[in-house]
């Protein structure tokens, strides 16, 4: 069974680039562009990793992260936060909420891929 990533990102071209990079590495990527409903999507799909943007329509990445950590079944799921909000307070908030890795945009493809492999044991 292939390794699965749920990508929550609202920029279509970024989705396309990440999907390409990860698929070349053997990952199956499912993308969604809305924070709302992400928790249900994770429960249904059970991905090995979630890549999460912060500024999302309807429900922020922080809220989604909080939802995941509040769910006993999902609290240990690796979450890579990939965001344009790179201030210390943003990073601190993400860490407090239990993010597994925090990366700021723009990112290097190799760095992102390494993080995904590390987090999901790939």
């Amino acid at each position, binding site marked *: 069974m292939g390794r699965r990533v749920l990508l929550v990102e609202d*920029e279509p*071209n*970024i989705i396309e680039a990440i999907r390409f990079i990860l698929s070349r590495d053997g990952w199956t990527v499912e993308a969604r562009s809305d924070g709302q409903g992400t928790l249900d999507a994770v429960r249904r799909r059970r991905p090995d990793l979630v890549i999460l943007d912060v*500024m999302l329509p309807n429900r922020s990445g922080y809220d989604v992260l909080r939802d995941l950590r509040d769910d006993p079944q999902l609290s240990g799921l690796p979450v890579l936060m990939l965001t*344009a909000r790179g201030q210390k307070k943003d990073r601190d908030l993400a860490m407090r909420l239990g993010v597994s890795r925090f990366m700021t945009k*723009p*990112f*290097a*493809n190799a760095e992102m891929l390494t993080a995904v492999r590390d987090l999901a044991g790939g």
Partner: protein
Amino acid sequence: MSAGERDNRGTGGRIRARRLDLGIRQAGLAARLGISASYLNLIEHDRRRIGGRLLNAIARELDTEPGVLAEGAEVGLLDALRTAAAMVRHDAAPHGGAAAGGEAAVAATAAVTDAAGRAGAAGPGPAARPASLAEPGSPPELDRLEAFAAAYPGWAGLLAAQARHIAQRDQALATLSDRLTHDPFLSESMHALLSAATSIRATATILRDEPELEPDWRARFHRNLDSDGQRLADTARALAAYLDGAADPAQAAAASPQEEVEAWLAARNYRLPELETELEPGLNPDADPHDVFDPSGPGRAHVRDTGADSPAAASGDAGAQPQQRSPGAVPTSPPGFAALLSAPDAPQSAAGRALARAHLSRARDEARAMPRAALLAELAHGIDPARIAARFGVGPGAALRRLGGLEAAAAGRPFGLILCDGTGTTTFRRPLDGFALPRFGAGCPLWPLYQTLGRPGWPLRAVLELPGQPARRFTAWAVAETRRAGGFDGPEIVEAAMLLTPGADALRTLGGADSGPPPPDPVGTSCRICPRGGCLARREPSVLAASEEGGGLS
């Protein structure tokens, strides 16, 4: 010394100035005081400190108060110097040395140290310490502050002025930092820039690292690069224009395209006579006032929209509620917006102009549907948006917006107007004296504007009472309306409007002669500045009542 000019002199300097102002010779004053002229000369040049009886006697002879001579404006100077010293200590403490703005202050206080030493050398006191021995960061000698200020009032004044400038720049920096953090336009622009840059970088790396990339993927990534490059350029241009505008004091207040449009309309007193027509109104005298909120109600004829600028035409919004007018009304050619938008005071940014165009388009349609003369004639019977909507065959939201565009002189009373979308985000504000509309963020959750969002098509009217002494009352009408954008099964778009006017008397006409206005609803303007206690709708504590019971969250 003129009023407002800083008095940098010491006590002696003020004695001398006062004596000269009164035209008294030095020898004459010395004689009256029973001291020698040379001693008075030393006093006047701050070479001798005086106090007690002699100061009282001099003040008496010069017809002034001893405190004025002893302190005068020097009190302010000394306070400024103490503040400068405190700034140095504040800057030095947490960092263990001079911080950015503190370096100048440290150097300045080193000068104080040196100057005070020299002042001491000039009179009684410890020996002077050469400037080269003043250690940066060493604490200023506050106990010798007065001697320094008295001996070198010019330098002391300069130091105080520099400290003030540093404080002002720190404040400006904090303000700009706050603006960078909270300005919605800047925030969105930065996000757009970083998103475009992210996509470009990732895509470019893929193209570099994948020389054997399949043609369809390659073409797709090239398209993405092109679109992201265009987006990056547009955003950068808009940001540059915005920052240029921010540097211009005249535009500094406009923090977003929306504010740009609002400032433009406010400068015109919200009048757009270019859009008014002399059409016979689409009167519908038989309309039942109770059916006005049914957009598909009987007796309404849809008017063909000939304007390419209409919101429906512009957005391809097939489901948008059309303008309604009785048969026989002949629409004139839509006035061009070019003249309005080419005026020097029109919005300059691309986003501001787009918003202005949308505003003009709708205002033109509503001016056609509710001609000004007929509308003012209706208003003569009282403010009843429901009756006006029925009379002109328009929806209640259009009636509120049209009334909200009238100037007080014509309407007989001032109006305020606020519009928001389905998220509660403010999309337009026409301020009203006494009813503050927040610049950023939402207003009071108890406003009818937000109450109607949950029940589109269900109009509300209320008397609102704002806290304060005395409490201020306003009459408000609000309604949310929906339209379906993007065709038959497109998303439903919600917009709410709230019209405001001062006082509670505007509702008197609705319930008959004997019924007074309804009891007022206690509301605020925005939680952050609302002192009202025990509010169940409060979303954040008030800065005005941090220690009061009412300021906290319920």
